[in-house]
């Protein structure tokens, strides 16, 4: 079931800086009998921001959720083909999805802090992963990294739900950073936020990309243009799916190229607003 990738990884930990952080080959995702994503071959470069764009129902989020095995939570989802993280396949029952998810963190569309204190929102992930270091220090470091510390330092023991939407989303980012992942997946992280909060999250992403590989799903093409280095455009392919929409990857290019000089006519139609 796994397509071979060349060259085969000698040792996962020796992943060089040039090697893509995430790769998919011949990736197909099924939800029950309907094919949601077909034949995706994508390389996600390390320490860059990769944007996944495309109209609704094109499989952007489905693709994103392959990178941390989140599709496992959907009862009848099935993944075929190969997905590699640092050159190691993460498809199939032998992969420890729990360990993978600590290394590939995720930020969701709707801010979803736990109904716990701000402090415990950050500390929770570290505790379950057996963190033995100085928890106060980790909480402060994570909140500072997410540009939230100055706003919450006086109220760390108030509920995370008392924060504004934008602050909640930065709290969720801080919570993800606290378990020290290598990759951060963001599923439309700003779609529930106002423009000022959105700008703050975008600044934060820019700041984080030196240390993390970021993949962001966005409906907002301006956002993809502003923040990403590489953009992948997905489109629903209606004919192939027998009436159901099946997502296909139509183009991957450096962001400035994709938005100024797209190769595929479908990409051009989408970014000029004629489709989707």
């Amino acid at each position, binding site marked *: 079931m796994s397509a071979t990738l060349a060259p085969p990884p000698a040792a996962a930990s020796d992943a060089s800086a040039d090697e893509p952080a995430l790769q998919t080959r011949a990736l197909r995702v099924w939800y029950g009998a309907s094919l949601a994503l077909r034949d995706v071959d994508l390389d996600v470069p390390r320490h860059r921001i990769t944007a996944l764009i495309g109209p609704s129902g094109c499989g952007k989020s489905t693709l994103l959720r392959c990178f941390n095995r989140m599709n496992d939570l959907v*009862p009848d989802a099935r993944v075929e083909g190969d997905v590699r993280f640092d050159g190691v396949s993460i498809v199939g029952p032998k992969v420890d999805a729990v360990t993978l998810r*600590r290394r590939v963190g995720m930020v969701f569309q709707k801010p979803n802090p736990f109904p716990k204190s701000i402090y415990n929102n950050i500390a929770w992930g570290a505790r379950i992963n057996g963190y033995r270091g100085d928890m106060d220090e980790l909480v402060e470091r994570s909140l500072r990294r997410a540009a939230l510390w100055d706003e919450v330092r006086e109220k760390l023991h108030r509920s995370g739900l008392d924060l504004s939407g934008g602050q909640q989303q930065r709290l969720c980012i801080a919570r993800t950073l606290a378990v020290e992942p290598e990759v951060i997946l963001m599923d439309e992280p700003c779609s529930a936020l106002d423009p000022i909060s959105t700008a703050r999250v975008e600044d934060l992403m820019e700041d984080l990309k030196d240390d993390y590989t970021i993949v962001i799903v966005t409906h907002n093409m301006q956002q993809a243009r502003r923040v990403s280095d590489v953009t992948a455009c997905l489109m629903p392919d209606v004919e192939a799916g027998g009436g159901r929409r099946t997502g296909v990857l139509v183009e991957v290019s450096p962001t400035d190229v994709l938005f100024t000089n797209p190769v595929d006519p479908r990409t051009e139609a989408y970014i000029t607003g004629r489709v989707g």
Partner: protein
Amino acid sequence: MPPPLANTTPDAPLLDPDDPWRGQSRLSAVAEFVAPILLALCGLVTVLTTLGILAVLVVQSVEFFAAAGIGVGDFLFGLELRPGARPPRFGVLPLVWGTFLIAFGASCVALPIGLLSAIYLSEYAPRGVRAVLKPTLELLAGVPSIVYGYLALLLVTPALKAALEPLGLRVDHFNAVSACLVVGMMIVPSVSSLSEDVLSAVPQGLREAAYGLGATKFEVSTRIVLPAGLSGVAAAFILAVGRAVGETMAVVLAAGTMARFTLNPLTSVETMTTYIIQVVGGEASYGSPKYLSLFAVGLTLFAITLALNVLSNLVLRRYREVYR
């Protein structure tokens, strides 16, 4: 200043015979008028019933205190219940104790089983299993309580005897333990069904967030979902305890009717409800203090279950506020 509005009283009748839009039918206008009254009356029935019951209980209780010549304090804090003695003693505490013993014991059975099965149903069970198991569990709530009483008498008590008497423990034919066991089983569906609703209602986003941080299913279930739904689970539990407190038939068959303070659950006890049954079924003459005492006991029971229901609602309201 804007010009005055023109008089818009129509010259022609509103209904043009050629207009295909005939407007509301006359019947719907009647329904619009009658429906709220009818619905309000139906709603009122329950309120009036409650108030009526309360009124009867209060009036008869006052009569009881007059007839028995005892004060409210003697009743509420009296340690002896001997209506046949001279002078008769009407202390309600032995009944409160019996009720508490049964409710506590039943909780010890129902809380773990109900809660764990709720967690299983909401977090672990595959959809097919859940579709079968949940209705089956709720079916358990439909079994008449007297059947549970027989179960205690014919199955649980003999089993207890077989298990404990070789160890030198005397098991009475009527005993509190078997009442606790069957009443506990009886209220498991209340705990599990309501708890399961509450746990399932915990937003999926919280589970995904926890999984995304590298949590295992057990960690997500016990450290995110359960705490998030805890007040709902508590409300379910309090409601179930209320049922255990009010349960009669199963208890009378399992635990008998011996009003006393005992820490030994292998002997017979009497609860408030079983006392009422005993008095009604006995030879106490109408209007006698013994007969009237059942209203005072009923009022006490009413107050306790009402308090439990109010408490449950308060807890549940707090839970709803978390995800407003």
